[in-house]
């Protein structure tokens, strides 16, 4: 008997415990640092280690519940969670998710749904990653200049003026911004639709929305994003367990052993970095994932047959 291996009762396979604990630690670290769930990394890695794809996605959402609780808690302690904003985003995300599920049904009925979904995913990742990279590079340079010239440049763009003209303006104290209530609901909904279509949590979309559209400070974005992800993943975990029986409790426990600790370390480490530095690292990770997916799409895969089921 080898005590390094545990049998996973739902995945129906055996795994070396160091693999999920290590993966959890790494992805939890990213989660605490950047406020993403990390499903875009974790799910393919679990599949690579022999976990059926449907179980990998469902169990990952269970694990994210733990990692994002740990991360939200760490960020909340230092006042970096905007609960009010998080709540509005959640409402929008929930409604958007419902629309997204319907959109998938329509896509599937028209055929080549997989193609559209995959393309949307790659393009979104690529656009978001590139934009964040260029923007944060710019603002890093600007910050340098500003410290030299101590100039103030807060020009109001047309878009900002438009946002300010919307009704139901309200103050978000934690983030230090004033917006229409509709704004987080609409953009939360937009991310919800896309996330549901692409079958991912959408953290990598929510973070840029909060930074660039809602103009929240990066450190509050990370905490608030985690808070929002926590509730999304509770819902997804329950639905997956209830309707698809795909959550593997043992695998989730192994993953969260690493990810809860990783999220704490990430949160502590993140405080030592500037907002711009966080953004640019996240942009690089998103671009790396985009490149990986593009390679997967173009290189001939070693196996042309895979397990059925799932989306």
């Amino acid at each position, binding site marked *: *008997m*080898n*005590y390094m*291996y*545990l*049998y996973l*009762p*739902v995945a*129906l*396979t*055996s795994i070396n415990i160091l693999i999920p604990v290590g993966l959890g630690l790494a992805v939890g670290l990213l989660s605490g640092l950047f406020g993403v769930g990390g499903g875009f990394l974790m799910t393919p890695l679990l599949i690579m280690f*022999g976990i059926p794809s449907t179980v990998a996605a469902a169990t990952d959402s*269970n*694990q994210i*519940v*733990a*990692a994002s*609780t*740990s*991360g*939200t*808690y*760490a960020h909340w*302690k230092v006042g970096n969670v905007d609960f009010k904003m998080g709540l509005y985003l959640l409402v929008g995300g929930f409604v958007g998710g419902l629309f997204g599920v319907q959109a998938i049904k329509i896509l599937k009925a028209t055929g*080549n749904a*997989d*193609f559209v979904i*995959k393309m949307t995913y790659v393009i979104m990742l690529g656009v978001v990653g590139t934009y964040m990279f260029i923007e944060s590079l710019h603002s890093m340079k600007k910050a340098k200049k500003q410290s030299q010239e101590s100039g103030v440049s807060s020009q109001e763009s047309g878009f900002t003026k438009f946002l300010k003209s919307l009704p139901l303006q309200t103050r978000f104290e934690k983030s230090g911004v004033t917006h229409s209530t509709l704004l987080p609901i609409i953009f939360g909904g937009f991310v919800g639709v896309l996330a549901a279509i692409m079958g991912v949590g959408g953290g990598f979309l929510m973070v840029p929305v909060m930074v660039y559209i809602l103009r929240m400070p990066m450190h509050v974005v990370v905490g608030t994003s985690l808070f929002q992800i926590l509730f999304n993943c*509770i819902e997804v*975990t*329950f639905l*997956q*367990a*209830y*309707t698809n*029986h795909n*959550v*593997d*409790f*043992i695998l*989730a426990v192994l993953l*969260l*052993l690493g990810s*809860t*600790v990783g*999220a*704490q370390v990430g949160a*502590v480490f993140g*405080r030592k970095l500037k907002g711009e530095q966080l953004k640019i690292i996240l942009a690089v990770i998103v671009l790396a994932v985009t490149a990986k997916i593009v390679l*997967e*799409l*173009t*290189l001939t*895969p070693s*196996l*042309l*047959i*895979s397990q*059925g*089921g799932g989306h």
Partner: protein
Amino acid sequence: MKKFKIQNSKFKIEVFLFLAFCILYFAASATAFADLTIKANHDHIKIDFFYHGSSVSVKGEADPGTDLIVKITSPEGTQELRKKGKAAGFLWMNVGNLDFENTPYLYSVHSTKKLEDMLSREEMDKYVIGYPALSRHIEITPVSGEDEKLKWFDEFLKYKESSNLYRSSSGKIMTSSEGGRQAYYILTDWPYQAPPGDYIVTVYAVKDRQVIEKAEANVSVEQVGIVKALAEMARSKAAMYGIISILAALAAGFGVGLIFRKGGGAH
């Protein structure tokens, strides 16, 4: 004199009966010995918390001069799998499903010699022995013709072999002669990827390119303890299972948060 005669005939009858008994005994025991025998040791595999596959040995006796094939399969069924193909001419992605019918989930064949050297094609097909026979036995839908079927069968084999569920070997069965009989023995790794269920182990004795005898044994794989309890709960008490999974994750997240607050005050 008469008495002697009677005694004599009685003696003859006794001798006759003794000889008849001997002939019958040897004939009977000869047929008993001629039977191909099979025994799978460790035929009840228990999947517990630390299960990482097992090993199963198959042994028995056969007539001398016969070649042997040991086949291990699960019952046949339909498997729905996804196929990858080029979408828009250059992008690899899932392009649909394939149904594999009459298909065992696990299939392994071990033989004393190469299958094609010891068995005719008809016999291979009749008993579904070897990958070529299996490719003719399995139904794959939808495919446009025989060529496409063979292509997907080859991909299917790669997929199954990559998870140790399909295997084929020759020369791994050990044989020795014991009291005029041929004893055989093979030790095979039992893959942890094989799900719980009943499996059939069949040994075929082959002579002159034909199967002359076969014998079967069973291997059952069963979940026990925590593994069984969790698997059953995930299926039959799904709502409770989901809630427990969520609560455990929440508790773990908060727990670690508290530990870090106490332990790591340096921030």
